[in-house]
C-alpha cells in the first residue's frame, strides 16, 4: 500500500517534479501500528470479497474505511475480530496481526480476541436487560470484576467514558431498550469499553442517529482515540473527514488508497478515490 501510494505520488504530476513540493504527510501512519494486515483475501463461497488487502492501522488514532456499498470495507472490518468465522462458507486468507500476533492462528481464542477487539454495529443492539446489566455483562463473563463493588465501578467508569452516565445514573435498572437511539448507541459503546478492549471496530455507528446524537458519538470517538485504536466504517464522507486521522478507500474488494485523512480529502492520489469522494460517476 505504502509503496503504491508513493509510486503514484511520483508519477501523478510530472510538471511538479522540477520544483520542490511539500510532502508533510507521509503515506505511512506516524504512530505505532496496532493492526497489520497483509495480503488479505476473503471469499464467501466462490465469490471473492477482498483482494490482497494490506493495511496498517495505527494505535491511538481513528482509521476510517470508506467506499461504495459492496466494496469490502465491512468485510475487512469483520476480519479484524474474526467475525467472518461466524459466516458459513467464509474463508479468510492472508495475515492479520494484532500487536504482531496472528489473529487467525489456532492459538487465538476468538472469544478472548473479541474482548480485545470490540465491535459497535450500525443499529444499537442493547441486550434485553437493564442498563446496568448491559454494561456489567461483559466484565462478568470474562471474569474481569471480582466483586460487586468492582463491577459497579467498571459500569460507572464505562458509562462515564461513553458520555452517558449523567443521563442514566438515576435509572440504571431500567431496560437498555428504554433509551433513545443515540443513548442506546452510547450504551453499546459503554458495553464494548467495559471489557477494556484495545481496539474498537465501528460499523456505521451513526447511520441510524440524528445529527445531535451523531455529534455526541463523534465527540466520544474523538475522546476514545486517546486510549484505543478505533476503526470506523462510514458512508458519510463528511463523518470520515471529521472523526478520522487516517482514511482507507476500498473499491470492488480492493484497497485503492490509504493515507492521512486531510490528504485523502484534499488531494487524493487515485482518480477512483477522487471520483468517489467528490460524488462523480466512477
Amino acid at each position: 500500500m505504502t509503496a503504491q501510494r508513493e509510486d503514484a505520488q511520483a508519477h501523478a504530476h510530472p510538471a511538479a517534479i522540477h520544483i520542490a513540493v511539500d510532502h508533510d504527510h507521509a503515506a505511512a501512519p506516524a504512530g505505532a501500528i496496532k493492526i497489520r494486515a497483509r495480503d488479505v483475501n476473503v471469499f464467501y463461497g466462490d465469490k471473492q470479497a477482498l483482494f490482497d488487502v494490506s493495511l496498517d492501522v495505527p494505535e491511538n488514532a481513528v482509521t476510517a474505511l470508506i467506499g461504495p456499498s459492496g466494496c469490502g470495507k465491512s468485510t475487512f472490518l469483520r476480519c479484524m475480530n474474526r467475525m467472518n468465522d461466524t459466516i458459513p462458507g467464509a474463508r479468510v486468507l492472508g495475515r492479520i496481526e494484532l500487536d504482531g500476533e496472528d489473529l487467525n492462528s489456532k492459538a487465538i481464542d476468538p472469544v478472548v480476541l473479541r474482548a480485545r477487539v470490540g465491535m459497535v454495529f450500525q443499529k444499537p443492539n442493547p441486550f434485553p436487560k437493564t442498563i446496568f446489566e448491559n454494561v456489567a455483562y461483559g466484565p462478568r463473563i470474562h471474569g474481569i470484576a471480582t466483586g460487586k463493588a468492582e463491577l459497579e465501578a467498571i459500569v460507572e467508569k464505562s458509562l462515564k467514558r461513553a458520555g452517558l452516565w449523567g443521563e442514566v445514573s438515576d435509572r440504571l435498572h431500567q431496560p437498555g431498550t428504554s433509551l433513545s437511539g443515540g443513548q442506546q448507541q452510547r450504551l453499546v459503546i459503554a458495553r464494548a469499553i467495559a471489557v477494556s478492549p484495545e481496539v474498537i471496530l465501528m460499523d456505521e455507528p451513526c447511520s441510524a442517529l440524528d445529527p445531535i446524537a451523531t455529534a455526541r458519538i463523534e465527540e466520544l470517538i474523538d475522546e476514545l482515540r486517546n486510549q484505543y485504536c478505533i476503526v470506523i466504517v462510514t458512508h458519510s464522507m463528511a463523518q470520515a473527514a471529521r472523526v478520522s486521522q487516517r482514511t482507507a478507500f476500498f473499491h470492488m474488494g480492493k484497497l485503492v488508497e490509504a493515507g492521512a485523512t486531510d490528504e485523502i480529502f484534499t488531494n487524493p492520489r487515485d482518480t477512483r478515490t477522487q471520483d468517489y469522494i467528490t460524488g462523480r460517476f466512477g
Partner: protein
Amino acid sequence: MNEHIVKSFEDELNTLTAECARMGGLTEAQVADGIEAVIKRDTALAEQVVGRDERLDVMQADIERKAIRLIALRQPMANDLRKTVAAMKIANNLERCGDLAKNIAKRTLVLAEAEPMTPLTRSIERMGRLVLSRLKDVLDAYTSSDVDRAVLVWTRDDEVDEHYNSLFRELLTYMMGDPRTITACAHLLFVAKNLERIGDHATNIAEIVHYEITGEEMISANRPKTDSLRA
C-alpha cells in the same frame, strides 16, 4: 474528469470558474488601459479605468459569496474543494490588481499636467508590457488548467523585479538631476511599484493554480529572487 452525479453541483462549480475567468479578463483590460493611459497621458481613458473598478469589486464579492455558499451547501472535497478555494483566492488577487490599476490611472491625471518624460515613459511601458503578459499567461494557465504555464510565470517573477529595480534607479537619477521632476518621478515610482505588485499577484495566482491542479504547494524558497534595492 467524470461528471458529478448531482448535476447542479457541477453547474455551480463551472459557474464559479467561469466567473473567475471573466473577472480575469476584465482585470487584464483594466491593467492594460491603466498602463496605456499613463503612457499616452490619456486622462479620459484614465477616468474610465477609475470608473470601471467598482465592477471588479462587485465581481469579487459575488465570487466569494458563491464559493462560501458552495462550501456550505455542497461540502466540496478534493479537487472540487481546491477549485472552489482557488476561485475565491484568485478573485481576491484580481480585485487587488484592479485597485492597483485604478491607482495607476489616478496618477495619470496628475502626470498629465506635468512635463512629459519620454525615456521614463518608455521604461514604464516596457515594464507594463511584461507585467501584463505575466497576468495574461497566468490567467490562461488558470482557464486551461495548464500547470506548466503557471510554473513558468512563477519562476520568472524576478524579471519584473529587475525591471522595477532598474526603474527605481533611473527615477532617482532624474530626481537628483532636476528637482523639478520630483513630483512626476514620485508618481512614476508609485506606478512602477504598482506594476511590480501586479506582478506579485500574478505570481500568487500561479501558486494558486498550481495548488488547484496538483494539490501540492510550491515552496517560495526555491524561486530565484532578485532582491537588491540599493541604487
